[in-house]
């Protein structure tokens, strides 16, 4: 008995909250892998170097760009929550949320520009 196509769920702020949650989940899954990769240095520099060269592949670089997008968007989304919860109410939040998403994409794009 769920109503179909709930329109208010398409609002910019609802999407911002969902993106915040999904990016957090993605980062939480990524983090153990990140730590394992860095831990390769225990076995010596060569092991880590081997891994780093593996990450030179274009596909991996794209994935890294994606991760930077997730990190930035999660940070900015978190700032949104911290501001709502700790400061006076402000209008124009929808515009700020859209701006935050754009900013994250731009930063990720700059990263990709540097590595390609």
């Amino acid at each position, binding site marked *: 008995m769920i109503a179909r196509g709930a329109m208010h769920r398409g609002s910019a702020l609802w999407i911002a909250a969902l993106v915040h949650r999904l990016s957090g989940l993605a980062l939480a899954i990524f983090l153990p892998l990140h730590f394992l990769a860095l831990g390769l240095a225990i076995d010596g*520099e060569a092991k880590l170097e081997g891994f780093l060269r593996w990450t030179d592949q274009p596909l991996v670089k794209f994935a890294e760009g994606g991760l930077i997008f997730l990190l930035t968007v999660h940070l900015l989304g978190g700032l949104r929550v911290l501001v709502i*919860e700790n400061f006076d109410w402000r209008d124009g939040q929808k515009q700020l949320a859209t701006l935050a998403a754009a900013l994250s994409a731009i930063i990720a794009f700059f990263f990709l520009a540097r590595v390609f």
Partner: protein
Amino acid sequence: MNVRLYLWQRATAALMVPLVLVHIAVIFYAARNGMTAADILSRTHGSIVWASYYGLFVAAASIHAAIGVRNVLAEWSPLKDRGASQFAIVFGFLLAGLGARAVFAVVLS
């Protein structure tokens, strides 16, 4: 429990704002200069600064991610509060352990 978890979640979030910004800057620097493992490790080896920075980051991230995951599980999965909390605690320790090992790897080994 709720107030405590809420405060830890928000506090670690606020703490990580500058930590993440520095981390992104580090990523950009390393990417631009095409750093090798040797380049990276020569900078981090025996460095109190890097050990402290990343040690703090690992601690904050472990707490923050664990509480976040707990909330998502309680709302989106069949696990209820207790199951979600148990999973989150294990996850938090896993992150902290692997993270500490990673810091050790780049600073001391």
